[in-house]
């Protein structure tokens, strides 16, 4: 389980997170929605300890992230796959080496034949051909880069998958492909997922539960039905563009 309790974060004078309470239960897929620049990615980076909160606590599997030692933090991270917004692939390494780095068990990482098989398996899961292994990130399209990023994130067989805007910058067809991929991986691998996005339709397609972050606070958490029937004007405003026909409950 992932839980954020009263998390505050500011960069200089800009308040990004202003008392965020957010939780993700085992096995579910939660989409974290919100307009651009509201701190969704910052929130996600708090979960994995890449950013420390000014105050508040982040708990992953009953362990407080801020109190973990260097070794324990590395171990916790090895159970979490993080898909970066722009892939964040290592540009000096080819696809095989990039995905291989995702194998977090050191003994398995040293086993050349295991690595080869695992990388092939992960590439297959994200619908990439084996020939992609030899290519460098600069030779890949945006969609392929995202998929390699996902392959790297799942290579270590994580318990949690955190997606940071997996469909941003993609055309609608490729965005649908990535959404379907996320849904399929959640079902096939049985992982717990958090997807940060501002693509409402994609979120509704993939997530079991949704949360809306605006002005540094989670203003609504709940199921799709709860979102569609929400009285909250911020929720209505956010959904209006994608669901113009939705009849928000009076």
């Amino acid at each position, binding site marked *: 389980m992932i839980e954020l309790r009263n998390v505050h974060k500011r960069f200089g004078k800009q308040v990004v997170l202003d008392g965020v309470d957010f939780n993700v239960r085992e096995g579910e897929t939660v989409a974290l929605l919100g307009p651009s620049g509201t701190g969704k990615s910052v929130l996600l*980076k708090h979960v*994995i300890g*890449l950013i420390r909160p000014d105050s508040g606590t982040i708990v992953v599997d009953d362990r407080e992230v801020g109190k973990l030692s*260097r070794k324990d933090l*590395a*171990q*916790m*991270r*090895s159970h*979490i796959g*993080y898909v*970066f*917004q*722009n892939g*964040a*692939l*290592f*540009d000096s390494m080819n696809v095989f080496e990039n995905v291989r*780095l*995702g194998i*977090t068990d050191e003994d398995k990482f*040293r086993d050349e034949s295991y690595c080869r098989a695992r990388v092939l398996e992960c590439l297959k899961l994200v619908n990439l051909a084996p020939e992609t292994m030899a290519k460098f990130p600069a030779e890949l399209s945006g969609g392929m880069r995202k998929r390699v990023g996902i392959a*790297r994130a799942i290579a*270590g067989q994580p318990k949690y998958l955190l997606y940071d805007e997996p469909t941003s910058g993609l055309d609608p067809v490729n965005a649908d492909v990535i959404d379907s991929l996320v849904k399929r991986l959640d079902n096939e691998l049985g992982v717990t997922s958090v997807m940060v996005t501002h693509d409402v339709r994609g979120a509704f397609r993939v997530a079991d539960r949704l949360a809306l972050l605006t002005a540094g606070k989670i203003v609504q958490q709940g199921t799709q039905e709860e979102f569609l029937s929400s009285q909250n004007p911020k929720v209505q405003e956010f959904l209006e563009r994608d669901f113009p026909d939705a009849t928000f409950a009076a």
Partner: protein
Amino acid sequence: MAAETLDLRRYVGRWTLSAASEVGRVSLLVVDIVRSLREVRVWFPRMMTEAWNIGVGSLFIVLLISGFAGAVTALQARYQFTGTIPIYYLAGVIVESIVLELGPVLTGLVLAGRIGARYAAELGTMRVTEQIDALESLGRSPGSHLIVPRVIAGLIMIPVLTILADVMGIGAGWFSMKLVLPITDADFAYGARSFWRSFDATYSVIKAFFFAGSITIISCYMGFNTQQGAEGVGRSTTGAVVASSVLILLLDVLLANLLLQQ
């Protein structure tokens, strides 16, 4: 007047805090480097690649510059000292100038530009494209994957390049002297030996070692802490070159004062 004094105080206060914070962060990086040394299996193969890149990639420019420095030292020594001291003394002047000062300092400054800029730009780009975050998110230490290989490679290869620069500088000086002065090989060797102390070579390597530490640690620090996109990478790169060059010159004075005592 009072407002100006207050502003000055604020400025000095801010600058002091900022400098203390930078020193603290560099110290934390050094601690991280020491901790990461345990992960030999991770950093050793990467260190070999970096060492090869530094050595082979910098050899030509280092030899070129030290060769010219040696030749110019010989020609200036002829201009300044001919007729005032025995010719073979000039060999001592050339060898000592090259080994004690020009070899390590010129090599250090050239590599501050070449290696320092490269490390800062590489790590800075990795920072702004979230590659360093990605490495951390995989539970891997950026220290053992990125910093330690670069620092160790520099600590090994920069002294090696300095030794080669010393040899090249002396060779070029010797050759230049023979072209412009009636000096024999035996006279040159005699002159060089008469001023030579066995510590001189050690001193040259010690200086190179310190210069290597300042180049690699500062440039890795600058690159690692890059912010704000392409502009930030540019700022880190120039900052790394300027800061490590200034530190080389400061260390040059400090080491001469500490180690060159009669």
